[in-house]
């Protein structure tokens, strides 16, 4: 075991899989010699050679389209979108091709590819380096959408994603790469080494897909969240003194619904927190599911705390970002009823 940042944990996952499976190849913009703009693939080309880990042209459609062809051949490509904000040119290849290939060919061809992309804001990235587009994938049949919140899960979920025979959209909350950011942007960064979840085994292990985690057990209100918002919600609970049960969804779709239902039925109150824009966001699906399954257990309306329905701002980043104060206010509203 060693204390790892999320970046080191992701790199370790790819290292393990390159070593174990000759069909794994890794490519994307700047991921080869340089090791990626966030350094997740640093050193992997030197270790495994240029035909296993390499740079790609600036063409997200080309990166995903070629990965589908490689998967049809029998490889297991892991490709990087430099920022989640950049995946849009690849959407046709993801939605019309990767997601449906198994179904449309009745299993003749499959697309076991993993598409990594740094997601979320909090880095003064403006509207083209801050988006959280997960709902554009959870809406698509045939895709798995995964988002870890800590180094241990990041490695275990990435290995599980690479080994999965379905196409996986793997979101990496970039504000968590170097520490468990809790939304207090004006405070010094806390390093991962202060969290037990930074203890990461060197070798192979998986965190199963479709499995949520109870990040913080509590009795008063259930918070359904994922990615960076796990720590924001934790800070909100601590600062408000509310005994919140925080569920880290980890796999957005397919979802671990039993864990969600069990918690909401226990606390009878539910707050949903995500950084993405609100309307038709993944929170809307969660709201519907909780309403369908837990309506007679609920004591209060379901609350949503999300980014505003605007482009992600630059100067007004912290007015946009759903920080601990907004989450705490929603918890209080849920408790007032």
């Amino acid at each position, binding site marked *: 075991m060693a204390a790892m940042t999320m970046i080191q944990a992701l790199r370790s996952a790819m290292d393990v899989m390159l070593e174990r499976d*000759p069909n794994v*190849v890794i490519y994307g913009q700047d991921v080869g010699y340089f090791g990626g703009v966030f350094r997740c693939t640093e050193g992997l080309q030197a270790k495994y050679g240029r*035909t*296993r880990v390499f740079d*790609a*042209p600036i*063409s997200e*459609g*080309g990166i995903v*389209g*070629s*990965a*589908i*062809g*490689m*998967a*049809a*051949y*029998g*490889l297991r490509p892991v490709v990087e979108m430099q920022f989640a904000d950049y995946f849009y*040119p690849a959407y*046709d*290849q993801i939605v*019309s*091709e990767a997601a449906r*290939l*198994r*179904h*449309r*060919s*009745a*299993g*003749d*061809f*499959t697309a076991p590819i993993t598409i990594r992309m740094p997601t979320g804001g909090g880095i003064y990235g403006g509207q083209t380096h801050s988006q959280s587009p997960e709902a554009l994938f959870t809406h698509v*049949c*045939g895709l*798995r959408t995964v988002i870890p919140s800590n180094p241990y899960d990041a490695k275990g979920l990435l290995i599980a994603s690479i080994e*999965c*025979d*379905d196409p996986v959209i793997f979101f990496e909350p970039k504000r968590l790469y170097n520490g468990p950011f809790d939304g207090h942007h004006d405070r010094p960064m806390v390093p991962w080494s202060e969290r037990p979840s930074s203890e990461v085994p060197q070798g192979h292990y998986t965190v199963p897909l*479709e499995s949520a985690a109870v990040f913080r057990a509590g009795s008063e209100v259930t918070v359904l969240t994922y990615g960076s918002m796990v720590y924001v919600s934790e800070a909100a609970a601590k600062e408000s003194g509310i005994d919140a049960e925080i569920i880290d969804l980890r796999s957005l779709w*397919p*979802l671990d*619904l039993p864990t969600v239902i069990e918690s909401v039925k226990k606390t009878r109150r539910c707050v949903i927190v995500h950084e993405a824009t609100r309307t038709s966001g993944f929170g809307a699906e969660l709201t519907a599911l909780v309403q369908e399954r837990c309506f007679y257990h609920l004591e209060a309306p379901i609350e949503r705390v999300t980014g505003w329905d605007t482009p992600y701002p630059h100067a007004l980043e912290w007015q946009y970002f759903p920080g601990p104060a907004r989450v705490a206010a929603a918890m209080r509203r849920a408790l007032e009823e």
Partner: protein
Amino acid sequence: MKTSPLHLNVPEPTGRPGRATDFSYLHVSPAGAVRRPPIDVLPADTGDLANAMVRVLDEQGSPVGPWVPTIDADRLRLGLLAMLRTRAFDARMLIAQRQKKISFYMQSLGEEAIATAHSLALEPGDMCFPTYRQQGLLLARDDISMSELMCQLMSNEHDPLKGRQLPVMYSYKRAGFFSISGNLATQFIQAVGWGMASAIRGDSRIASAWIGDGATAEADFHTALTFAQVYRAPVILNVVNNQWAISTFQAIAGGEASTFAARGIGCGIASLRVDGNDFLAVYAASRWAAERARANLGPTLIEWITYRAGAHSTSDDPTRYRPADDWQHFPLGDPIARLKQHLIRIGAWSEAEHEKARAEIEGQVVEAQREAERYGTLLDGRIPPLASMFEDVFKEMPWHLREQLRQAAEQ
């Protein structure tokens, strides 16, 4: 300097209903006139080949010039039979569509030489990434039965794709035929990825990508050229220029100012423009490109010049947008008639044999349809079971699909 107001150029074909096409825009080279460079030619030195037209058969059906391929008469007869089979199959399935036994069909009338000759030029294990008009790739093979193809067209109980795809969107991994998508151009970059994978694994198999003139306007086409050149992928990049994308003339895709083959030159890819109705030229150019790919010399782009003699699909009427007799005036003729003329000229075929073969093939097509209809047609509701709609969305069916399957079964 006095300037006139700006004017938007919207290309128009010379021919429209009631107005004959001026086919001089094709710039047809005489048979045998175009040089054949060695396979290790520098891509930049193929510019002349991307702008001329590789042709082998002359007007009398004699093979002339440096592109005459090494292919014996037996194999050429196989090619002729494959074209006859493709044409008969298409004709029969058009009727089946009119009878509502299938919902939709797309024929390849007039362009049969391209897919059939290319199929004969590839090796077992190579992978084609076709569009919806390369049924000739399958019908040239002896390991895919016509009745099984028809089961797909009829979405019946024996449809290997379980009724999930429109007719003609076949998938045959075992025959080197990638699952067809209705989203145009996506397969072009996928083929490059398949070729890259083969190179990564040190394999000897190559990929063959297919696209029409119209869809070359999509980003995936240009991306494919970039990736293919950058990684020197073992792939043949086929552009079937049949002049029409539904009702849109090829000039709307950019075919007026330069050839589609010339797109490759700008990307550093060896490129050829070839008479797609000349079976021998198609075979020769395909072999040349396949040899280059297998020798680690990288991609070759080939623009095949042909004419879409029929409608785009069973959903459009071409007499609404082009002269009804256009094909009869197309300078490159009918690929079946031209190969037949050649085989008769070399004494390897006769009119009587041709008629006999044609009748036999039509009988085989009728027999295949009878066999396929034993498992149902779209008319009789013998379609795949409800559960098959929910299967294969994921490898294992997740909870939400199990739940929805139950709901669908109850409704």
